[in-house]
Structure formats: structure tokens, C-alpha cells
């Protein structure tokens, strides 16, 4: 074998498709059993997670169990950068978040938002940074990835991908679609793994009121008949 390739392989810098073992990256449970199984463990402990989702279908609920567990374990800051609407503190408090450890940043421009995200990730005092950003480029993601590794933090990039774009160098990429029982998730990219088929995640257990259960087959809807 080519000596350089050999060297790189020994250094574990080259990933080969036949290596079916889990990557060395540490994983954190997402709080959803099905999703954990699909991701072979959960969200990465540090790095960038790219979530492509419309607003309001449950994209934040997907993250909450993981973020809450992180806050419980290390008590570092949770940062929201440039959310499109006000973050409701009632909801976070109800879920059990310590509001003192939450920051909301409203930068003036997308460029400043990226700067904030990088500073927060690098600082080492933030456990996770959620950034709403629409047009991010590959080199910017790389910077965020490095910053997240440096500060041992999780960066979640939330965007609505309108057009098909290049694959971003992220640890995990997911495309979310609305589904009555929860979410339809397609894993578009996973470090050290294959992207899978889209699957449905049932959130009924966590949020029974925000899911619609399918009618059992043996029940017929009562006919709307007008009484004359």
C-alpha cells in the first residue's frame, strides 16, 4: 500500500467504508429511543449538528431532552442566537431548565451572529449553542466545528433549506418534516456512518398533546347525519 495512505490509516485520519465500528466520538442520548438507535447512540457530545426544518413542527422539542440532560450534568450556559421569535421562558422553565443558565442573543446581522456563535463555543462556558441562520457557508461551518471542539460544546444550526445545497462538513445532518405523530427524520449526514432512510419518530410519549394519534382500525367515525 502507498506509504502515505498507510500512515494516514494508522493515524486514523482516513475513514474506510468497511470499518463498521462506531467512531471514537462520544455520543449523548437524544432522549428518544428510536432516534438513539438510528444514530447508534445519540447526538455527538461536541461538534455541529445541522437541522434543516420548517419552523414549528417540533424541531426544538427534538433537542430539548438532550439539552436538558446536558444542563443537568454540567450547568454550563445554553445560548440561543438570533431566534426568529421570542424564546418563551415559561416553556423552558416548565421543562426544567435553569433559566439563569440561558442566554438569548440578538445580533444585528448574520455575520455578527456567526461571530457570537464562535465566541460562545470557544469560551468553554457554554454547553450548547443554537443558531438560527439561513445562508451558512462551508468555511464558516468548519470554523464553528473547530470552535465547538475547542470549547467542548454542541452547536446546533437551525435553518430552512430552500434550495439544494452542498453538503456541509458537520458532525450530523438531519432533515425534518412534519408528521402527525411527531417528526419524519432523514439523516443526511453522519460522521463515521451512513445516512439512513427517512423514518418516523413518535413523540407521543413525551408530548402526548402535540401529537395526533391515528384512529384505530376498528373504530368507525360517527357519521355526521343531520336530524331532520
Amino acid at each position, binding site marked *: 500500500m502507498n506509504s502515505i495512505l498507510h500512515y494516514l490509516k494508522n493515524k486514523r485520519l482516513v475513514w474506510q467504508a468497511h470499518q463498521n465500528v462506531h467512531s471514537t466520538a462520544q455520543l449523548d442520548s437524544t432522549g428518544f429511543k428510536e432516534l438513539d438507535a438510528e444514530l447508534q447512540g445519540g447526538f455527538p457530545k461536541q461538534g455541529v449538528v445541522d437541522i434543516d426544518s420548517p419552523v*414549528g413542527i417540533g424541531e426544538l422539542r427534538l433537542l430539548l431532552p438532550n439539552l436538558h440532560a446536558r444542563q443537568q450534568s454540567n450547568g454550563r450556559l445554553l445560548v440561543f442566537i438570533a*431566534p426568529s421569535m421570542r424564546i418563551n*421562558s415559561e416553556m423552558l*422553565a416548565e421543562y426544567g431548565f435553569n433559566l439563569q443558565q440561558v442566554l*438569548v442573543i440578538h445580533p444585528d446581522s448574520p455575520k455578527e451572529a456567526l461571530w457570537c456563535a464562535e465566541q460562545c463555543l470557544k469560551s*468553554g462556558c457554554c454547553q450548547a449553542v443554537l443558531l438560527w441562520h439561513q445562508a451558512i457557508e462551508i468555511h464558516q461551518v468548519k470554523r464553528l466545528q473547530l470552535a465547538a471542539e475547542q470549547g467542548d460544546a454542541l452547536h446546533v444550526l437551525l435553518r430552512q433549506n430552500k434550495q439544494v445545497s452542498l453538503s456541509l462538513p458537520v458532525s450530523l445532518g438531519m432533515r425534518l418534516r412534519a408528521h402527525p405523530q411527531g417528526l419524519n427524520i432523514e439523516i443526511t449526514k453522519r460522521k463515521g456512518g451512513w445516512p439512513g432512510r427517512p423514518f418516523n419518530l413518535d413523540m407521543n410519549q413525551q408530548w402526548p398533546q402535540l401529537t395526533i394519534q391515528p384512529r384505530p382500525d376498528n373504530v368507525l367515525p360517527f357519521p355526521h347525519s343531520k336530524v331532520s
Partner: protein
Amino acid sequence: MKNLWLYLHFPHLQLDTLFSQDPAEHALAILDSKTNTVLQLNTQAKEAGIALHMGLGTAAALDQSLQVIPYQADIERHKLKDIAEALYLVTCDICFFPPNGLLLRIHNMLNLYAGLDAYWQVLQNQLATLGITYDYATGHSPFAARMLARDAWNQVTNDYSIMKKRVGDCALKQTELHPKTIQKLNRVGIHSVANLLKLPLKDVAKRFDIDLVTYLGRLTGEFQHPMHFFHPPDHFHRYLELMFDIENTQTLQHPLKHLFAALEQFLKVRDLLTQQLMLTFKQRDKEDLLLEIGSAQGEYQAQKWLTLAALKLENLQLTGPVCAITLKTGETQVRSPDKSDLFSGKKGTLSALQLISMLQAKLGEDAIQGLALHNDFRPEVASAYSAPLIQSDTLRQLQPLRPSFLLQIPQPLREKVSIIHGPERLHTGWWDNKETTRDYFVARSTLGQWYWVFKTPDTQWYLHGIFG
């Protein structure tokens, strides 16, 4: 204990102050603008043949490239204060002799340093860091030390007989007596200090005025010499005159580095932190520009302040060239080192407060918010933004099923939605004239988005939140 004094004389303080960083390449002279004579000059000027007290015309004729700077007592006064502050780290009693002298009372320091030689060594090292030329001498009285230092005796001793002999050898011109008195003394055949000291004080008092007697008494050390010793200031306040005007905020960082280094030194020896710095940029022909830099945690390190200042400077618009900078500190506090767990693993470089200060420096105070809860049932009141890292104290039981995003102002609902849950009636706020009656529903749009909508009593539908 015998009294011992040390006088430090700085023969060209203004020249050293202005050019200590980068020595000039050509001849320089400081000129007294009243008499038009040379007061201070550098080596190049000396080589050209220029001497002290020479007129400007002669000096200019000797060296055509001579650069002339007017004498400014202010610069020397400021510098003298800086020197005193630096020396205060190693010696306690310092007295100003403006414009260019410092007197140190040293006999009470000798026990600490175990002898004069060791003390002088330490003092010399401290002076070396300042990069200033100085003449020095010890004396048995303040005036004796001053006279010998100004004569550039440059010796340190605690042997009174040597000092007294040396003082006696001085001519009357070197004393601080009024020229008229010196003339009178010369007329009666007294030319040196020794001659004068031989006369009994009583006789001197009969023939001459009381000022001479006082002077003699103080010179010999028989009379007490009243003096005010230097007390280091509580607050850092420094003025830096720039060598040349700066119009670019990037370039401003260089002089700021010097100021912050001085600040670090000041705060470090006092074990203090400051949370706020006030920088004033003096702009030529324009209004002064005030810049406040804050750090929530409190800092003393120059590097940290420089980072914060750089972020602030990015947004700063200079209206004119900056010719001087003043740096002041706000409130200071005693440093209490943060205790962090050694075993909790990887540590970042910043603390939460430092991070917030940095973000605020760049984006402004209002861009960084924390979350707070208020004791109210109205969702828009209950959920609020607050200053970051503030503990909110709410005991009210929290309502289940609240959306993660709230609209700032509820928007009329313009979409077709299907109601999934509800209603939840809120009828509250009658006490502060913002009475609200709303029936809240959880609804799902045709695209699968989960909405929090409400109906008013007059059946208007509004969108108030989104379940993210």
C-alpha cells in the same frame, strides 16, 4: 537613628519622557519659550556643540537639523508622579521637588533591606525599568542631598563626614539662596558653603535675613524640614500624550497597550480588579471622545482589556486625529480568585461573565439577554427577557403546554388550522387596566406546524405562539 536622605535629580525629564521608546536620530533640544534658551538636549545635540542655556539662534546655527520642542512643565509633572508610583513599590517615603526631583527618606528603609548597598541596588533596578537618566546623591539633610544631586555627585554613602565635606566644598551658587543674598555674602568674603557654616548662626541672624538662617538650619539638618510625602492614588488615572496624531482606530491599540500595561501593574500590586474603564480620546480641534469599557467579572490583565477595547474600537468612529489618551478606572474591588474544580475536566478559556462582557463590548449591552419569569398568567408578561445571569424568583406553578416561541405581538390568524386541544381560558389583568380575556387553543396548520392561537370574546382569532 541618623537621618539619611536620597535625592534623585532628572536632568532631562521631558526629553526622556518623549523619546524613551524610540530614541531620536538627530539633535533634539527642549527650549524654554520665555527666555528662548536651551534647557535640555540629547547626545547628538551635545556632539554638535550645543550647550545648556545657549540661545536658540546659536544652537540653530550649530546644527541646522536641530529639532526644537517647547518646554512643558505638565509633562514633567506627570512623569514625576509616574516615577514616584514606580518607586513606591520599593521605598516608602517619597517627596516631590517639582519639576524634576524626588527626595526619598531612606534611613527607615535600611533595616528592611539590610543595609544601604542592598537598598540602593533594588532602587537602581527599579529606576532602570523606567529608562530615564538621573543624578543622585545622599545627604544628611534634604537640602544637602538635593544640592549634591543637582551637582551630579552620584554617590551613595551613610558617612556623614564625607557628605558634610562635600557640601562644604560647594560654591554658594549651587545653593538655593536668592542671588541677592549670595551677592551680599560674596561681598563679605564668603564664597563657599564651608565659609558660611563656620559662622555662628546667631551672628548670621543679626546680619542677614531670617530666610538665610532657616536655609542654613535645614542644610545642616538642625532644623526640621517640613514635607509632604507622596501617597499613592486610590484610582488609576493616566494621561498619555501621543508622539504623533492617530486617525486610525487600529493604530490606537498600540498606545493603549502601554496604558493597559501600566494599569495592570497598578491593579496587580494592590490585588484589585476593576469592572469599568473610561478612556478619553482627545481629538485635535474636535470634541473629546469618551469610551467606556466594561467587564462584568472584573479584570486587571492588560491582554484581557486589550481584547475588549479592540472590540469597542471596531465600532468607534473618530471625528478627528487623536493626540492624547486618558485612562481612568471606575470602581475597583478586591480580587477573589474563582475556585474551580480541578477534576471537572476540560476548561475553556473564559468564564461566563467574561464571555458576556466580550459579547456586550461588540454588540452593545442590549443584544445579550437572559430569560426571566414573572408572576403573571398573561404569557407575554410571564415570559420576559432580563439582564443575563440573573436568578428569577418565581414560585407560581408553571402551566403545562406552553409554546417555545412567542410572537412579540399576537398576529391575526390568517391560516386554516385544525384545533387539537383547548380551550384554556385566561381572564386576568383586571388590576392593571390591561384586562385580557382569551381562550387559548393548540392548533395544527395544514403544513403540520403547531400553533398556539387564541380567540377573543368578540371571536377574533390570533396567533400567539409556535411550538418549536
